[in-house]
């Protein structure tokens, strides 16, 4: 048996009112990739924050034994000096700075006062090569895509002499292709003797990359599964995570009744708002019928969000051409989301914190925002009615909260997503465009969101669901559009769609067939 590199013993961490970690034991062997899985709020991130010194020694109980010695980390610097480096889920790069500057931010090369730029860029280039990036380290971060930015984060970690690398949701904002590349990179590092811990919601990745899988549930480690032979499947992991077998991750679509075409887009072309020479949506035509769930599958950067937002009252980009028909009649939404909402279109954003919710306000105020006029008489809001509406949707969507006066910022991801859905359901749309409706939320909450989508379709609404999770698109849609490089490159009924022929469509389109 290999040497134990890290052992966390009887770790207990209490926040006011909650025990976030309860007597957790966690072991990582040298040279392995160890996955940490669990639902949102299970305690994975807390555990890693204890390890990296974000929660300093003394604020938790238990011992961290690393490389055979008991460690007392007080800051991140302490843990990094031992070679424990954590890469957080949110990219921590300054867009206006060069890759090299970013990599050595807070860790500058050179003597006391002056930074030695030659060393900085030379070393940065070396590490960039190790992660397979051909860009010069002098390129500004904002000029490279998210996938490459994630690799820069890893290069940055390597530059700190990482021996134990912790990756928190490294692929959450990457498309399938970039994700796979990243996982393969991890496997490459493993061969060179690096030890890694990966936290992720994507169980197929876990099964692919991890040697050991530790399941965390309700602040405790439930079990550690051995996956050295890559014989563990997703269902086995889910069983550990939720404590029961999830026989079905997707609810059945029942009573499907598909009616007339509700919304139709023809030859829709959109240019980038800042760089008009770039076409982000190219001659797209699609339609959705009443009671139908239409999936749009595509990799990140394919132009899906841009398409959706530009349909939604031209809230993105410069519309170059195309017609939008609702119930067969052409309409122009004069550059305003107000118009789109009036025409009963709703767009539920992929970025619920950035574009969707007001975190500093209550559930009640968020729920009513998109349809406040219906609660107001001559501009005066009927606040009692507003409260009742918020309560109604809390009930309907089973949002877990003590009260609708609770600030949205205090809710978990899944519950925030429900508030966002409530807001748009209250706007009473006929067409709902859902952009990545289950991103970053746990398995249980996902199931509930799927049920809501099915209910909406059953009530005769038209649903367009944009997603980069293939199983989700396959299971939830009646019909699937495939989008790649700004174009719709394929359309197929769900009955004919498989993982293989969707990926094949994308690859074919990439070759320009």
């Amino acid at each position, binding site marked *: 048996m290999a040497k134990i590199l890290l052992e966390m013993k009887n770790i207990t961490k209490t926040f*006011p*009112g909650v025990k976030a970690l309860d007597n957790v034991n966690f072991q990582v062997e040298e040279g392995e990739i160890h996955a940490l899985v669990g639902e949102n709020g299970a305690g994975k991130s807390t555990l890693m924050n204890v390890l990296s010194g974000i929660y300093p020694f003394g604020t938790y109980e238990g011992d961290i034994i690393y490389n055979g010695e008991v460690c007392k980390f007080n800051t991140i610097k302490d843990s990094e000096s031992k070679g424990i480096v954590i890469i957080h889920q949110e990219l921590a790069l300054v867009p206006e700075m060069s890759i090299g500057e970013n990599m050595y931010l807070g860790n500058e090369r050179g003597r006391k006062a002056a930074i030695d730029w030659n060393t900085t860029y030379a070393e940065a280039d070396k590490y960039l090569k190790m992660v397979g990036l051909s860009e010069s380290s002098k390129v500004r971060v904002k000029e490279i895509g998210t996938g490459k930015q994630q690799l820069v984060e890893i290069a940055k970690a390597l530059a700190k002499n990482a021996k134990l690398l912790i990756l928190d949701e490294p692929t959450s904002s990457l498309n399938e292709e970039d994700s796979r590349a990243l996982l393969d990179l991890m496997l490459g590092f493993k061969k060179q003797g690096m030890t890694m811990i990966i936290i992720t919601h994507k169980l197929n990745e876990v099964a692919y990359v991890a040697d050991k899988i530790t399941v965390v549930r309700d602040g405790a480690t439930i079990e550690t599964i051995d996956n050295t032979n890559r014989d563990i499947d997703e269902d086995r992991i889910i069983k550990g995570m939720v404590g029961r077998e999830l026989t079905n991750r997707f609810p059945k679509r029942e009573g499907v009744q598909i009616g007339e075409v509700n919304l139709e887009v023809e030859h829709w072309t959109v240019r980038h708002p800042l760089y008009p020479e770039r076409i982000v949506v190219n001659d797209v035509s699609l339609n959705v019928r009443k009671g139908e769930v239409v999936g749009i599958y595509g990799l990140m950067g394919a132009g899906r969000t841009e398409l959706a937002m530009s349909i*939604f*009252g031209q*809230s993105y980009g410069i519309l170059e051409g195309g017609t939008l028909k609702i119930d067969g009649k052409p309409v122009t939404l004069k550059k*305003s*989301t*107000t118009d*789109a*909402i*009036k025409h009963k279109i709703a*767009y539920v*954003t992929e970025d619920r914190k*950035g*574009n*969707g*919710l*007001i*975190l*500093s*306000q209550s559930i009640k*105020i968020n729920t009513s*925002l*998109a349809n*406040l*006029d219906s609660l*107001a008489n001559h*501009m*005066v*809001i009927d*606040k*009692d009615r507003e*409260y*009742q509406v918020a309560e109604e949707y809390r009930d309907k969507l089973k949002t877990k909260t003590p*009260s609708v*006066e609770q600030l949205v910022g205090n809710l978990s991801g899944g519950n925030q997503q429900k508030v966002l859905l409530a*807001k748009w359901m209250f*706007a009473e749309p006929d067409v709902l465009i859902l952009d990545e409706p289950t991103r970053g939320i746990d398995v249980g909450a996902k199931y509930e969101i799927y049920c809501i989508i099915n209910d909406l379709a059953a009530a005769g609404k038209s649903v367009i669901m944009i997603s980069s999770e293939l199983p989700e698109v396959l299971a939830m849609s009646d019909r699937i559009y495939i989008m790649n490089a700004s174009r719709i490159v394929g359309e197929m009924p769900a009955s004919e769609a498989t993982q293989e022929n969707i990926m094949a469509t994308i690859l074919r389109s990439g070759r320009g067939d």
Partner: protein
Amino acid sequence: MKNSPVLNFVKKNTMVIALVLVVIIFSISTGGKILFAQNINNLISQNGYVFVLATGMLLCILTGGNIDLSVGSVVCFTMGIGALILKSGAPIILAVLASLGIGLLVGMFQGFWIAWVSVPPFIATLAGMYAFRGLSNVVLGGYSVGVNNETFLKIFGGGADCYIPDFFHGNGLNITCIGLGVIAAVILIIMTIRNQSIRSKLGIAHNPAAEWAKTIVISALIIVIAYKLAQYKGIPSVLIWIALILLVYGYITANTAIGRYFYAVGGNEKATRLSGVNTKRVYFLAYANMGLLAGFAGIIALARAGHAEPTYGVGYEMDAIAACFIGGASAYGGVGRITGVIIGAALMGIINQGMSIMGISANYQSAVKGLVLLVAVLVDVLSKKEKA
């Protein structure tokens, strides 16, 4: 560690408690002088402009911590124009409408650049601050212009004889004043009863005990202040205007859709825009309204001073901004209430006055105000940090 109800109460009402403490401290250090009827009267008359400007400033701050630096200059400018019109013998209404109209135009002008051209508010209003200070000089020709129109002074002023007359001719006690105080308190109590019954009927969660406690404290305070003012000369005219503005804007911010949009834009502008709200209009309205209220502040400042001078209004914008932040408005926008503005403005006024009575120099007063502002924002920042 559980949050005890006491701790919660303290956290929620930090500035109210601070206000009470400051009043107690000054009552002791001035030997009770600060609670003399005349001093309470002066407190209101002297600080009228702060209440008015801070109300407008709150809306700007709500939209995302944006401030309006031009209000001091605009107050001076509208003061000057009002004074000149009155001097020419034109009717009062003309002077009032001119001040309000010009204030509104200035606000719309700045709002246009901020909302539709995306000029940062700080810069747009800094430009206004210079420009209208200069124009005030131009309009007044560098001189002081006096106002002799007694009626104007009486309607808007806080000077020697600018009071609501006592219709009942009480002997040493202004009966009208007490009457109005009692009426205000009764209206407040009736509204509380109505609210409670509606909430109970609709099954909305509420806390009757706390709401009643609040109503009773506020009603008592109104009656005590009314009684104090009655002992002196009654209700200063300017108090009626302040109360009107605070009530109207309190209602707008709490109960109307446009009021809600100020909070929403400050909380998350993108999300608000994607919810079908014309966010540019919201910014525009905030600054247009600020201009209007600056015009109104110009009127009451003119009536208080009795004349206009090119140097008036310097630093008014900072008083307004400070009142908002002391009153709990968030420097990032989206959080803040009119009641907070009242508390913030009152706290600053009391500190000024208390120290004046104690004979402390104005230089120290300014230093203490600065300290209070820092501590107030510190409390806000720290209480938020604890939550995270």
